[in-house]
């Protein structure tokens, strides 16, 4: 798999696919979900991310809104990666994702398909798009932890 994920053509199609068919792409009318509205100041992405965390486990994440390819694909990938994970596992993935975006060391195995976004740092003005959904879930996790 790692070798496949080195092929720019494959990575590109992954982004396209997540953009055109975003996963977990519908909000829930369920009050057991936490919800964060993310509207960036410097770009026009405007999404809402919801999560249902029970005990240590992320049971579900979903999102919707108006967003560009990168914001949509990166958030969609995030939902796939994090649903079903424990808080600790999720935090590890998130840390690695941010490390990748910041061009620091990271573990590609952990990020799986999300490494498709490693090129985002080339277009500094799009980093916000690539992190908007990730920022939302981190915020919900942090709020939960702080509430403990």
């Amino acid at each position, binding site marked *: 798999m790692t070798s496949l994920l080195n092929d720019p053509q494959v990575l590109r199609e992954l982004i396209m696919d997540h953009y055109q068919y975003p996963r977990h792409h519908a909000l829930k009318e369920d009050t057991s979900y936490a919800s964060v509205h993310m509207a960036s100041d410097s770009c026009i992405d405007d999404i809402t991310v919801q999560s249902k965390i029970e005990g240590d486990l992320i049971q579900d994440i979903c999102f919707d809104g108006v*967003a560009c390819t*990168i914001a949509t694909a990166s958030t969609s990938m995030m939902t796939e990666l994090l649903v079903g994970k424990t808080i600790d596992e999720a935090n590890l993935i998130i840390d690695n994702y941010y490390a990748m975006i910041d061009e620091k060391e990271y573990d590609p195995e952990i990020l799986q398909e999300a490494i498709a976004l490693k090129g985002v740092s080339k277009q500094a*003005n799009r980093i916000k798009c690539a992190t908007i959904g990730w920022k939302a879930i981190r915020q919900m996790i942090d709020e939960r932890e702080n509430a403990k």
Partner: protein
Amino acid sequence: MFDINKIRADFPMIQNAKVAYMDNAATTFKPQCVIDAVTNYYTHQTSNVHRGDYDLSYQVSKEYEDARVAVAEFIHAEPKEIIFTSGASMSLNLVAYGYGRKFLKKGDVILSTEAEHASNILPWFKVCEEVGAVIEYIPLSNEGEMTIEAFKGAMHDKVKIVAMAEVSNVMGYIQPMKEICQIAHEYGALVVCDGAQSVPHVPIDVKDSGVDFLGFSGHKMCGPTGVGVLYGRFDLLQQMDPFMLGGGSNARFDICGNILLKDAPYKFEAGTPAIEAVLGLKAAVEYLRSIGMKNIYEYEHELRVYASKKLQELDNITFYNPNASTGILTFNVNGVFAQDAASFLNTKGIAVRSGNHCAKILIELIEASETIRCSLYFYNTKEEVDQFIEACKETTVENCVGIFF
């Protein structure tokens, strides 16, 4: 004579940045003479204004007032009708606060459009909240244009203020301010004109058009940021409250709280003004006059018609304002999110802007929450337009994602 090569040579950014800069509705490049005016203040004139105890201060105070004269001449006003502000936003807030909040009453109507920039509508929201006035909107055509008929239909006796951009920053149509003023004045309403996108692009004559207030920004007309202008009919300015109070705007005050304000325009200019920005604006106004506002408008119009025609020939584009006459072109690439497209165009050396362009209530009207805006100025060229059109052709989702690889 309008010599585009000579003009382009005046702008260091054109040489240095090597992009086709088409975000002129956001801000404009500065010619060398403006840069020199600012630097000259730093290297030869630094001192504060309004006092003349020593030569430096006397000289710069004089030049500061000369700038007021230059700006007044530029729009055919009197110097005492020119207030220097920090920008169009502050100019428009000043009218709303100083005039609207003071003189509007419950039930009074402010007539406006859904195409207004946030800076020309939010201050009136606030006035409404405080005094109980209401905003009504003139219906726009499907292309976001306001017709005089629609305006007439919307006017009535309770309208006290007509707040409207002379050129919308999203749609780029020029409103016939003179007709609008005549009609508004018949009803006893005042016209507050947002000139942020008109003063830089078309010849302005406030005496001829009859606008009561006109706000605009220096940085959109080749001048520095941090300076704007509010023109106001002198008798209205005299009645109006200042927005800020402080050093320079009062003649006297005592411990009992009595303040004696200076006459307009000084009572509105509290604190140390943006001195070098005002001197830079003077240079900008002189520069624009040396080229001629009529020439600027005509060249820009010609360029716009050229771009408009080419854009309409593309089949992957939805073009929202084909019939506007200024250099603002608003469109989307079908199936591509505006920001992705703008980012792709960026990689092709083209600077355009995506977004709702601070006119958020227009969104519902043109049914596109986000658009791309290409805005031309007199230093742009047909070659740049060609480059832009070519890049638009190539704008596909695939290519937009491709920039990351």
